[in-house]
């Protein structure tokens, strides 16, 4: 601190007038134009004059564009929009919104139908319900959709392996959903092959379930890529490791 309570960097050079440091209140009054040149601290009379002039009343040239501004207001202002705002504008918005809502409703319907369908399929999967019900319902309906549902619905997976070993061996219709259900799983194909010999007529449906389970493996490959994604991580991680060790 210097002799007058100012930092050395604020001290004036020799021969230059001292400009005192201001407190916040004085700055506020100066900025607001409430502090005139006569009342200003030493060295700030000119500043007070300049600030008052800068915030002073409008000069003649500064309001010259009033007519143009009013014309712009007439052309683009609320009044003009109230005239042009209008049904066409609402109509323009309307179809888009209605379309969006229709699409949303359609999607919701598809999802709901799919959910119901999945629920039915899950019920029809033999082993989920009673063995008799599973077999009976699995015959007609479960070959196509049931196979897909068995793959999509998560709880069906743990149940399908026991089904293959338990009761689905000799039943042709039950073989297809089991296979489709087991595909994403590990390898009960061997077990199902034992029982699938009499179930050969079920092979024709194979092409139909094959495209359907495609969405089912999707969730499984998803976890696979994560470890794959994590592969590149270790490499940079491995490189910094020695850095940490260093």
């Amino acid at each position, binding site marked *: 601190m210097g002799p007058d309570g100012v930092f050395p960097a604020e001290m004036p050079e020799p021969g230059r007038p001292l400009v005192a440091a201001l407190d916040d209140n004085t700055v506020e009054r100066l900025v607001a134009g409430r502090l005139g040149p006569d009342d200003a601290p030493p060295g700030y009379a000119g500043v007070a004059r300049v600030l008052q002039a800068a915030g*002073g009343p409008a000069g003649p040239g500064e*309001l010259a564009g*009033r007519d143009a501004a009013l014309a712009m*207001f*007439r052309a683009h202002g609320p009044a003009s929009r109230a005239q042009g705002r209008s049904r066409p504008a609402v109509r323009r918005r309307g179809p888009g919104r209605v379309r969006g809502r229709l699409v949303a409703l359609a999607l919701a319907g598809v999802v709901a139908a799919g959910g119901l369908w999945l629920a039915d399929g899950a019920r029809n999967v033999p082993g989920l319900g009673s063995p008799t019900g599973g077999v009976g319902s699995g015959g007609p309906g479960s070959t196509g959709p049931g196979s897909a549902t068995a793959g999509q619905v998560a709880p069906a997976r743990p149940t399908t392996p026991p089904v293959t070993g338990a009761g689905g061996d000799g039943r042709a219709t039950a073989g297809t959903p089991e296979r489709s259900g087991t595909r994403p799983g590990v390898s009960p194909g061997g077990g199902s092959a034992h029982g699938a010999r009499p179930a050969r007529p079920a092979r024709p449906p194979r092409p139909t379930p094959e495209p359907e389970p495609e969405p089912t493996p999707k969730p499984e490959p998803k976890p696979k890529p994560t470890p794959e994604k994590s592969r590149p991580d270790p490499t940079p991680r491995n490189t910094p490791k020695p850095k940490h060790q260093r």
Partner: protein
Amino acid sequence: MIGPSFEAVLDAAAGGDEAAFGILWRDVQPGLLRYLDALAPGAAEDLASETWLRIVQGLERFAGDERAFRGWVFTVARHRAVDRWRRRVRRHDELVPSDVLADLPAPDDPAGAAVDAISSRAAVALIATLPPDQAEVVLLRVVAGLEVAQVAAITGKRPGNVRVLTHRALRRLAGRLSEVARVRGAV
């Protein structure tokens, strides 16, 4: 400042009342021009027109008091000025042949002009010679009549930083003016 009647004036302008908009315009336009003249010399009128167009288009959606309205106007103006600056930088059209510059008369000393005439134009020109962040803070406070918090919001600075910049700007102005007075006294 319009004062207590601002809300009624704003409502009327938002409803399409031309006279009410004229009151708003008359109150803000001088400060707007001064601010823009410091930010973008020579383009203040155009930028002010662009600013008012935006204001008119959004007038119905605005809600707030007079200070908030002024803050909104000057925020839009600042964006317009920054956009213009970016466009010109992208186009590189600010390059002027040096022979043209040589023919131009030397500008008057803003400090001397401010001391002499103390017109608002000279005062703003003097403030504009400050470092840009200091000049903008002072102009927003003095010319636009905004509070520290509003200036901080517009410029993206902290209120404490705005206060510091204001202090420095005033001190620098004081030093410059007193030096001019000293030189003139010596002459």
